[in-house]
């Protein structure tokens, strides 16, 4: 699965995207964020306020409890500041 990161989340993780092979027990976006946050200290810090993080699956906005099954691209990003 491909993960995209934007804005300060991208900066704190020091990457704009990555490919990951997920363990079988990672079922939802919330599971994915917890799994990512556990990888190292920078990730733990980046996902410290994880309720703030917005998420999209295959370029559609979704909530953290959405299942990952079948999705190709998941995007994680801070609150949007358009306009």
């Amino acid at each position, binding site marked *: 699965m491909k993960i995209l990161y934007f*804005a300060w989340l*991208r900066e704190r993780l020091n990457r704009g995207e990555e490919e990951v092979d997920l363990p079988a027990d990672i079922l939802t976006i919330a599971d994915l964020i917890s799994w990512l946050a556990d990888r190292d200290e920078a990730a733990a810090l980046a996902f410290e306020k994880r309720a703030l993080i917005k998420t*999209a699956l295959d370029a559609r906005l979704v909530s953290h409890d959405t299942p990952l099954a079948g999705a190709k691209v998941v995007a994680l990003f801070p609150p*949007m*500041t*358009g*306009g």
Partner: protein
Amino acid sequence: MDIRVTQAPLDPGAEANAFIARAAHAGAVATFTGLVRSMPNDSILSLTLECYPELAINQLTAIAAAAQSRFALADVTIIHRYGRMLPGEPIVQVMASAPHRQAAFDAAQLLMDHLKTDAPFWKQETTPAGTHWVEAKSADDDARARWQ
């Protein structure tokens, strides 16, 4: 409906003229242009917008469709730039045409209130003191909520 997400410069006057020419039978057109702001006591050297283009197109299309059906618009355009911009440059332009002015004004306001919070752009300001990400404002959430 015309939805564009682009790094190219934006000419709001030319866009407005083209939109108005297509709206000859609508009766009313409202256009809004958002600019990079720099105030004497809050000066900005440049503004850089990061974007997730695929999601931006989907979100702006959904916002425009909602405005179109709610206000029975004849036509709607949203143009949103990303990349680096200087003070005074246009960032975003929304235009709505309708039979009467109230629908056109309300649609332009709804479009802006929604794209502040729901369009995947992230602003980074460069000031004389350095560069920082602009934080999302709760006032923007409040402005969006009044349309629900």
